[in-house]
């Protein structure tokens, strides 16, 4: 299987030959890859080098925490990349911006109101979590379309709080 993996704008071509052999950008490596204790902690022996990383799947790919550095990687299989290159990029259509809770917490205050015309950076909601109060701000200019919460309400991670149109 051939993969195209992108980290920080740099693209790596990785071919997985079999359980113990891969090729990275044309260079072959012997590998031994195993999950430790059935957790997302992976041990990799690669040409004798021993590396261990925590890794998590995200919406866009994988987060790899290796020696205290976080890498965001996108992995695609080569055929998918080729197919995508042929097709046209879809136009950006998103017009609404959703303020989502960046953490679970308690709504302390709502500092805007429906219909308000706001600028990017305008404070919308004050959320308390772990004893800290956090001011959540708009990331775009626009109009407050919806407010989906009330003061005193407990909210979950990523829950939509406010819709800005």
């Amino acid at each position: 299987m051939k993969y195209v993996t992108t980290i920080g704008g740099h693209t790596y071509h990785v071919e997985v030959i079999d359980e113990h052999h891969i090729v990275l950008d044309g260079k072959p490596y012997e590998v031994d890859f195993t999950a430790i204790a059935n957790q997302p902690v992976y041990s990799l022996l690669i040409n004798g080098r021993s590396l261990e990383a925590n890794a998590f799947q995200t919406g866009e790919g994988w987060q790899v925490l290796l020696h205290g550095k976080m890498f965001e990687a996108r992995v695609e299989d080569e055929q998918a990349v080729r197919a995508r290159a042929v097709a046209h990029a879809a136009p950006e259509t998103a017009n609404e911006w959703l303020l989502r809770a960046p953490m679970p917490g308690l709504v302390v205050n709502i500092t805007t109101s429906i219909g308000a015309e706001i600028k990017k950076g305008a404070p919308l909601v004050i959320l308390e979590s772990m004893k800290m109060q956090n001011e959540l701000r708009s990331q775009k200019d626009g109009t407050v379309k919806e407010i989906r919460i009330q003061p005193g309400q407990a909210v979950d991670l990523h829950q939509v709080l406010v819709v800005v149109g």
Partner: protein
Amino acid sequence: MLVNKVLIANRGEIAVRVLRACRELGIPTVAVYSEADRQSLHVRYADEAYFLGPSPARDSYLRADKILEIAHRCGADAIHPGYGFLAEREDFARGCEDAGIVFIGPKPSSIAAMGDKTTARATVAKAGIPVVPGTEGEGNLSDEELIRIAAQVGFPLLVKASAGGGGKGMREVRTPEELPHLLQAARREAEAAFGDGNVYLEKLILTARHVEFQILADKEGDVIYLGERECSLQRRHQKLLEEAPSPFIGSDETLRRTMGEVACRTAASVGYYNAGTIEFLVDKDRKFYFLEMNTRLQVEHPATEMITGIDIVKEQIRIARGRPLRYRQEDVKLSGWSLECRINAEDPYNQFTPSTGRLQLVFVPTGPGVRVDTGVYSGFEVTPYYDSLISKLIVWGETRAEAILRMRRALEEYRIIGVKTNIPFHQALLESPRFLAGLFDTRFVEERFALNGETGGEDYHPEMAAIFATLMEHQSSQRAAQIMQPARQAASRWKWSSRGEGKGR
């Protein structure tokens, strides 16, 4: 005084810390817990445990009335408040006294004198101790008064909660225009954290160090200092990494002694007993100013324990029992170097937002010179109700360099899966040349340090990360393919295990 059964009015790592001290002294213990904390270590380790109330602190750990009632009911004759929650509440200390319960802390009047930061500044200034310029007022001021005085203090300045501590209810103000809004924010946060929305102003001293002295004082009036801690590494006024001794004071024994003696005098000025901490700002000319006194056990007390060999919590209990100090000033010898990293459940790659969830795995670093004080374990659920400190990683080394290298290896070993932590932040900090050189002040983390700012270095291996990510993607797509296939033997085709022949020899 008898201390035959201690109720610990706290949770998390500090409750565990106090429980351990009690157990090592052979004193029975009582835990109290909120709904979220039934499986917490402090409940598991205590001899007795009683339910307090719903998870929010105001309904549980801040319910002084319930805690006193439980103490009465179970026959606890002493209460250790830990830090935070009720630790610096004069009324709680007095409530204990009235109920005939030993409060393992200072007397109520000392808390009153030092707990209200504005009163404290006035008190120590009267005793001839230099304070950071600000609103030296009697009592608490209104917004209008503060806005008026702000011009005299000068900008930038800090709004600080009178009842404050731990950076809560604190705001930096750069211009007069910002002041009204930030006063509101600080008051709101202070009200939520301490139940007291009063604030005061303090000049913001730039390129200053935060250096604090640990003291012990007994009921006979003897006060000693256990050296200093360097606490300049902060983010949003929250300490992140502390060390003892301070590299800034270094081998300047004269400065250490001068500041230590001022610290003792400060404590004595309010008739203090118990462990306590006097915080100073030290400017680049080595002039120092009293900031505040914390009339309680401090988060970072282990750094001092590591270099003195003195168990500060056990000393607190001895002092509460009315025993004289076991050490004279000349018995206190500082040996080696200690660092403490506060491990918080927060995402360093996303503005340090708090992170909650069930811990799938906690693997703590161990071995020579490593100490971990924590309240969590594999399987524990980190909830949003309390602060984000889930562990303290403390190391000792013969020298600062050895301590730093040891801390690096310990951070690399630490595995916490289930919530995001600031471990990568500490790892980056411990590689920063300015930290290594001891060249930092209280603004360093926020102004001159960036996580992943430096993308070079020996340990930067994007190509290896690419291989990890690819193998994981491959593995998960192979697994997905297998689920499609009915035949079970297919599952062994891509067995990424260590058994068998062809492994990396």
